């Protein structure tokens, strides 16, 4: 099993090199088939790793440099179920994006090579146990996606989106690097487990706090959490839909995964006394993102941008799971990331089908959007309901009502926004008249993704497996002992009981769907009767929807300062 570990990264990298080198001479169809085959094999390998990491960490020490006496000189992949599941999600979304893109002309061998490097980077990101290795894969994923967003270089909107994205994400990445430098200065190590051990034996001070804030901000920029969200609307709004699928289905969730991984393996020991205050700060950020994102989605008129704001809102919901700093919440995040990521990818695939240059099919896309909205609202059997239920159970009894309200309200409003889009497309005049049998690839992808989300909500044991996986990730001492091959005395394995969710998700989901449909229908009725949306409503939102690079970086700075203040106070 350990020998398998580097393969899901090595194979797509070689594939990328082969595509670049031979792309000129090989017909495009063959190149696309090759990419599909590679993505599928990576998906299978990651699924094997999920099974193989059930009882113990799968460890692979690159270069054969094994740790001695608790010091790790080499780089390792330290694969637990959570990481392997994240890698599987990445492979699934990439496969879906490639298949959706097959019908377009713009995808050539070089673009496919970039998709392959994105896949390799995402998988490596989830599997690694070394913080600088994490940064390298993070940058590889970023650079590949910058290129993919701008793949249609004659479209200035896409170039602008790519430029916005590249500047914001680069500044965020170098914040992460600064945090890594600070931690290296304090701990003398780059291996996550070793760093955690070194930090835990000391008292926390401002250096640790600043490192935590800088690293968190860098990854939260990637996840497009408010106020670092400006780039996503531009990029997902103007890039080709399959690239947007990658962004919202996979990249966002991986940013949050990094925050969770780094917090639990490096910082959880030293921040244990302050966990309640820290939890509060993170919950405020998460809740703000969820609510503001939902409001922006409701207010936005353009379809792709609206879906981008829906995605931002749901990233806030995922962050709620991480912010709870608790195994149930983390398990909920895991389930929700997969379910919601697949749903959002399905929505963007539908957007691709709605205004496809050759076979536009707005009505079919509207149907997909409708089903997707049910998933967004959290209606069982979709696994989104399971994820939300687990997150809710991670909250203490005092915060649970507020959390529930935020979860419910954001899901309802975003579902309403998507249903509104579906209604618009259903009544769209243009429809493909010719060739009824071609151009359905995107529909197959959407349908498959939504079916996976529904099936996953029904399969027994998902909740239990998720909580067990979360238990593994949150147990810093056991992780460190396993990675560094030191005796595991005193590291009791946590066994969080799986919460029984009962009929509550069904009731909440039904209520959400009803209210969402009502809101969407009511708005459509008012618009068709000639009522203009009031200018007073839209004015405050223009600040949050700015497209200027300068504004985005300003808010990045302000957001970092505020988060820094909050975490510093939490550590007092």
């Amino acid at each position: 099993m350990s020998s398998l570990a580097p393969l899901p990264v090595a194979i797509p990298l070689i594939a990328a090199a082969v595509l670049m080198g031979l792309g000129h001479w090989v017909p495009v169809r063959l190149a696309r088939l090759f990419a599909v085959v590679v993505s599928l094999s990576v998906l299978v390998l990651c699924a094997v790793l999920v099974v193989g990491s059930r009882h113990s960490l799968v460890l692979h020490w690159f270069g054969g440099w094994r740790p001695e006496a608790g010091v790790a000189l080499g780089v390792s992949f330290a694969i637990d179920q959570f990481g392997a599941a994240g890698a599987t999600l990445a492979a699934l979304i990439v496969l879906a994006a490639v298949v959706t893109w097959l019908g377009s002309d713009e995808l050539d061998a070089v673009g496919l090579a970039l998709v392959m490097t994105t896949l390799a980077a995402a998988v490596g990101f989830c599997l690694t146990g070394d913080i600088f290795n994490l940064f390298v894969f993070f940058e590889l994923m970023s650079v590949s996606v910058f290129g993919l967003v701008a793949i249609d270089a004659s479209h200035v909107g896409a170039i602008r989106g790519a430029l916005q994205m590249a500047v914001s994400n680069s500044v965020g990445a170098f914040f992460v690097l600064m945090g890594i430098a600070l931690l290296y200065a304090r701990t003398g190590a780059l291996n996550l487990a070793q760093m955690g051990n070194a930090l835990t034996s000391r008292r926390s001070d401002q250096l640790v706090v600043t490192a935590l804030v800088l690293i968190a901000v860098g990854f939260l920029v990637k996840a497009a959490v408010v106020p670092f969200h400006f780039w996503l609307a531009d990029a997902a709004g103007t890039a080709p839909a399959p690239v947007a699928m990658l962004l919202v289905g996979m990249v966002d969730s991986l940013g949050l995964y990094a925050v969770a991984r780094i917090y639990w393996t490096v910082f959880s020991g030293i921040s244990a006394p302050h966990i309640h205050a820290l939890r509060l700060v993170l919950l405020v950020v998460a809740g703000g993102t969820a609510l503001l994102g939902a409001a922006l989605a409701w207010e936005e008129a353009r379809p792709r941008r609206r879906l981008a704001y829906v995605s931002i809102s749901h990233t806030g919901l995922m962050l709620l799971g991480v912010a709870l700093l608790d195994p149930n919440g983390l398990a909920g995040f895991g389930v929700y990331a997969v379910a919601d990521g697949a749903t959002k990818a399905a929505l963007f695939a539908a957007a691709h089908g709605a205004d496809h240059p050759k076979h536009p099919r707005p009505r079919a896309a509207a149907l997909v959007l409708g089903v997707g909205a049910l998933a967004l609202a959290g209606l069982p059997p979709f696994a989104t309901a399971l994820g939300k239920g687990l997150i809710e159970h991670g909250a203490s009894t005092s915060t649970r009502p507020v959390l529930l309200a935020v979860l419910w309200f954001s899901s309802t409003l975003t579902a309403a926004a998507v249903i509104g889009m579906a209604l618009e497309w259903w009544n769209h005049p243009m429809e493909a008249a010719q060739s009824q049998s071609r151009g359905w690839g995107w529909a197959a992808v959407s349908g498959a993704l939504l079916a996976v989300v529904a099936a996953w909500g029904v399969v027994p044991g998902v909740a239990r497996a998720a909580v067990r996986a979360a238990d593994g990730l949150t147990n810093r001492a056991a992780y460190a002992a396993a990675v560094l091959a030191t005796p595991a005395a005193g590291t009791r394995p946590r066994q969080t009981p799986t919460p029984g969710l009962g009929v509550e998700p069904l009731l909440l989901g039904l209520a959400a769907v009803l209210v969402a449909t009502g809101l969407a229908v009511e708005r459509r009725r008012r618009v068709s009767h000639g009522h203009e949306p009031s200018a007073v409503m839209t004015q405050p939102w223009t600040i949050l929807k700015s497209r200027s690079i300068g504004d985005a970086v300003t808010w990045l700075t302000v957001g970092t300062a505020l988060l820094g203040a909050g975490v510093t106070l939490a550590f007092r």
Partner: protein
Amino acid sequence: MTTRVRQLVFFLGALGLAALVVSAFVRLPHFGSGFSIDGAQLGALSVPQRHITDVVTAINFDYRGVDTMGEEFIFFAAVAAVGLVLRPQPDEVVRAEVDAASGRWVPPTSDAVRVLGLALVGPTILFGLYIVAHGHLTPGGGFQGGVVLATGVLLVYLAGEYEHLHGLYPEQAIKVGESVGAAGYVAIGLVGLIWGTAFLDNIGPLGTIGRLNSAGLVPLIDVAVGVEVAAGFVLLLTAFLRQAIVLRVREGEQ
């Protein structure tokens, strides 16, 4: 936001950011102490364990070789992305290289530049190859040497015209070269996986310290990286030069 408001908001945010960052910096080990567990061990171990005298290369290509593989592919992806973004679009046309600002007389390349440029091409390429080959002995390695090699190519352009560059360095061959370099790194890693204990296991003969054929597989990796970086930089240069010199949007569509 208007400019004034943005500057004010940023100023406030920057104060907070500066406080956050400086308060951490003053708690760093004081400048000059250079404490590090990993660093001390690696400095002591690199020569006896791997017969590599340049410890930085030892870290980059042996102890933490997988990081450098990722870094090499970041470069690869960026070159691919630049090629994608700057490729000729459907509404663009390749024109002869004519100075876009009409009415301005462009002097031909002076003889001094021509002679010096051509004379320096050889030594530059030789120097680049030297740096690539000696990465494990003295400061240098694949990345640095690859950049110097690419500079040699740039000298050809400076000494001549764009069409010389284009003729001497066919783009497809260079793409193949870059891909071979990139795939080569992963292939060397897989060799370690199959015949050794782990990916990127340095299973080559370690040889004598200080000789060119020492340090196992590290010189091979250096060569692969050197080829990839040199080819990649040439592709970057030609993409930018082509944009500036020969690509023009079709008339009437600006």
